[in-house]
Each structure stands twice: as structure tokens, then as C-alpha cells.
């Protein structure tokens, strides 16, 4: 699956997920959008995002730790671009 398609899917998922949230984002969701800094994600929201992505693609075997962890610790921030890159690489595999 190519990255523009994945990015579009991910943008739609995030738009639905955050539809009734109060966020600091005043521009459309895009590759530079930060989950925590712009969309006010908390750790539990990441869990729900992963579930929504898994449900959308019908996959539960995606190794999200590759994008959510670094050196054995959880990362402080993830952008939509990083996430779509990760998804594109695994969904096309």
C-alpha cells in the first residue's frame, strides 16, 4: 500500500477520532501534525488510535512498538507522517 493512500486513511481515522475533542490544531491534519503537541493525545488515546487502525486494516499484527518505542522506552512524540510511513512499510510488506 502506498504512503499517500495510508496518509489519507490515517488522516480520516484521526479526524473521526478527534471530531469532538478540543485541540490546539488550527490547520487540517497532515504529515507534520503531532499527536501529543497538536492533537492533545494522552497515552490512552494512542491505544484507541492503534485499535482504530487495526480495525480499519483488519490487522492485529502490526508492530507499533517500532514507532512508539525507542531504546526500550516510549517516545515523547509521534507525527502523523512518521506513523503513516511506518504503516505504509508494513502494510505493503
Amino acid at each position, binding site marked *: 500500500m502506498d504512503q499517500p493512500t495510508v496518509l489519507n486513511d490515517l488522516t480520516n481515522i484521526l479526524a*473521526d*477520532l478527534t*471530531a*469532538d*475533542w478540543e485541540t490546539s490544531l488550527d490547520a487540517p491534519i497532515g504529515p507534520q501534525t503531532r499527536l501529543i503537541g497538536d492533537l492533545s493525545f*494522552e*497515552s*490512552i*488515546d494512542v*491505544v*484507541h488510535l492503534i*485499535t*482504530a487502525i487495526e*480495525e480499519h486494516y483488519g490487522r*492485529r499484527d502490526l*508492530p*507499533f*512498538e517500532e514507532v*512508539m*518505542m525507542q*531504546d*526500550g*522506552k*516510549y517516545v515523547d512524540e509521534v507525527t502523523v507522517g512518521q506513523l503513516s510511513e511506518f504503516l505504509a512499510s508494513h502494510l505493503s510488506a
Partner: protein
Amino acid sequence: MKTVLFGLDGATYTVLDHLMAAGVMPHLASLASQGVRANLESTALPLTPLAWTTLATGRSPGHHGITDWIRCQRRGEGTFIHLFDSRDNHCPTLWRRVSDAGLRVTALNYFGLAPPEPINGHTMPGFTSGRHLRRSSHPSDLFARLSAVDGFDVKVLGMDFDVETQGLQEMDREAWFPWIDHQIERDRVWLEVLTHLMREEPSDLTAIVLDGVDKLQHLAYRYLDPAHLPTEPDEWEQRVVARCHDYFRMVDEYLGRALEIVGPWGRLFVVSDHGFTASQEIFYVNRWLHDQGWLTWRGDVPEDDAEACQTDRPAADANLVDLEASRAYALTPSSNGIWIDVAADEFESFRAELESGLRNVVAADGQPVVTDIKRREETFPGAFSEQFPHLTLTLRDHSFISVLNGRAAVAPRSAPVGTHHPVGILLGRGVGLRTGTAEDSYNLLDIAPLALHSLGLPIPAELEGEFPAALYDPQYVASDPPRIATESPAAEPSEAAVDDEEAQFDAEDEAIILARLKSLGYIE
């Protein structure tokens, strides 16, 4: 027959009997005196996600696959956390079975309802952040419809994990009241949703869980259990007791409304997933494993000074241990479990050594702290047995273990806090149910057969529990015996078929019930 499962998470007769006697819960007292009451045993690990899933499926945890709140997966140097959800339950729920039979179901605030599955009725999940309730409810417009009802602030229904974590350890005195008020308001809105749906969109099976009971007891158990009440309470303690009573008084008021809506032609059962008791000490099991030379911390792990089982960051807690360098470790307090990581040819001897060591852990009074050690293959048989820790511990005061580093392996608590007890409650009132206390103790596995029979449905043979016949008048059971279904239900019927079957069932069911009731003298 209309059936309601009124779930009180963690409810125990130890507290409820006191509240009924004090006049705080008159509707529950009436139900207990006019209906039937019994003990209800929980799962081998009395923990909410396992226990409510067992109630909802009639299957034990090794079969349904819910083993804890979270699943920790080793990934390189770290541990990646997954939250268990509906996709991890591998057995059909009551909601699914009842819906497939053409009846309507409402299930509210249960664990394991998200992501939602389409059923004939309503589901709103519990233990879900308010931000995600809209997307996690079924049907998809339920959240919006309820939001439009006057007086419903449905966003309060969601679980605020920061608030809930506060209640698992001591708080500043003045912080108690807004915290208790939050539980009162949150469960009040859940109960408003319950009674609204029971009146406006009634279901054949209606089920709700009120988790405020559990949360309040974790924090304030010593102000609820008469054995621990202060003999000369100060002004603040008197206010805490009164505010806790306000919570139970509110729950009781809505129980009364639910009983009224059910009326004399239905059945209402009050159930809990486990009981409660007082935790008097804390066992820092990872500290003990470290002292034995079997566990290596990841760096310099500070000693806990808050009598805590975990911090407010479970993902960080799971990474406190250097898994690569450890032979045994605990990852979550809620599992009360120890994982063993040794070569296969060492496993049996190491496990025996570990079990022997655990049995010899003693507190300052010289008494053993660990009273039972369960091996997963014996305690949680089934396809998912290997997803449980190798050993599950029962401590003498039923406490949860601490995964943190302690100053010592065992330490007394400065004041008792609430913890889960394996025996909960079961009360029922309605057609055919007898009056009085049942001598037998029942199990969560028996609730699915109980509910299916109450709805006039056959009990699938694969369910592990038994229909609790002794809760009913023998004559009634003779006229309405449980039916065992030996074959799995057919594929999900179409929407049109559901409507047809529902109409047919209603007419036939009513006629059968009326005939039975007449024959037993319940009606003229």
C-alpha cells in the same frame, strides 16, 4: 421474561449488610428480604476484566482469553503495553447469544464492549475514556441520542484514568470529597441512562456495571466495613462516611426505580464480580525476587514511599525490570502473577525452588504472607493458559502485589485500604425465585445459564457453569426446567429474521409464562 443484571463491581455483604441495617439502602434490603440471596464466587484471580468477562460468557479465563487489564509484550529491551479489549475475548457473550436468538439486549459500562460488535440493542462500554465513548457505543448514534436527552452529561460516563489512579492510593484529605463526588455523579448518569433506556427502548436483557462501588471501596474501605470504622471518628472522618453513604444511597434509589420498571413480571439480579476486604500489608514481590538474586532492576530504581502497588504509569512500571537479566519477575500488580524466564530444562526445578521460597515469606508477626500459589496450567486451563503468568499468588489479606521496589519485601500499611476478595454477592427477585438465603455458594460461571434460562433460552452445552436451580421454588423449576442446547447457534440471522423471531418469541413466550404462572398459583 424481562431480565436485569444489576452489577455492583466489588460489592460485598460485609459492607452492604451494614448499609442495609443502617437504612442507607432500603430497596436492596427489601430485595434481600423478599428475594433470594447467595454468595457468588469470583474467578481464580478476582479481577474485574477476567471476572465480568466470565460472567458475560459463562467461560473461564483460560478459555475466553482475558487475563488482566493489560498485556505486556517484550520488545527488545523494553515492554510494550496493550490494553485488553473485546477482540481479546474469544467466547460469545450473553449479549451476542441473546441477540442471535432474536431478543434485544442493553449492556452498559461492562468491560470488553469496545470495539463494539453489532447486536440487536445497545452497548456502551465501561473502562473507556470519555473521548472515545461515542465511537465505542452501539448503535453508532446512541451516544448522540443520549446526549440530546435533558440532564444527560454523557461525557461524564467515560473513565478519567488520572482521577481513578488517585483513588488507588492515599490522597490529601480535602481531595477525597471531590473524588467521591465524581464517582457519585458518574454512576448517577450511568443509572440515568439505564432507567431511560429501560423505559424508552426496553430490552429483554438489560445489564449494567457500577464500578464506583469498587473504586470507593479501594480508597475508603476502612470507612465502609464496620470492622474497620473508627471508634471515635473526627469531623473529617464523619464527613467521609456520610459521603460514602450518599453514593450507596444514590445507587439504591435507582435500584428501586429499576425494580419498579421491571415490575412483578420480570426478574432482577444484583451481582458482583468479586467481593472486597481490607489490605493490611504490602508485598513488594519484585524486591523479594531481587533479594533472592533472581531479578535485576533496570538501573537505579527508587524505593517506594507511598505504599503503592504501581505508579500512575503502568508502561513505565513494566520497564522497571531488566527482563534479559532476570529469571523471574512480576509485571502488573493486578495479575498477582510471577513470570519465569529460565531454560526449559531448568524450569521445573526453578519453579519448585521459587514456590518454596514464596511459601517461606513471612511478615513481622512470623506468619506466611503467601497463602496460595496457583500454577497456570492447573488454574487457567484452556487455549489461553499460556498467556497467564506462570504463578498466580494469593496473599493472606488478598492484597495485590506491588511491582515497585520496596524498602523491604513486606511492609505493614499505615492504614487499611480496600482490596478484592474472591467472594461476591448474588441477589434476585422475580417470577419463580424463592425467598431467603441460599445455602449453596454459586460461581460467576453460573450467571450466564441463570440469565439465559430467565430469558427462556437454551443453555449452550459448552458453558462451564450450572443453572442455579436452588434459587427458585422447586415447583417453578419443575414447570420451567433449564434446556441444554447441544449445538452451537446458527450463523447470525438477518435483520428481518430477527424482527420476525422477536415478534414470534414475544407472543409464544408470554403464553407459556402465563400458563406456568397460573399452574403455580402466581396469578388467577
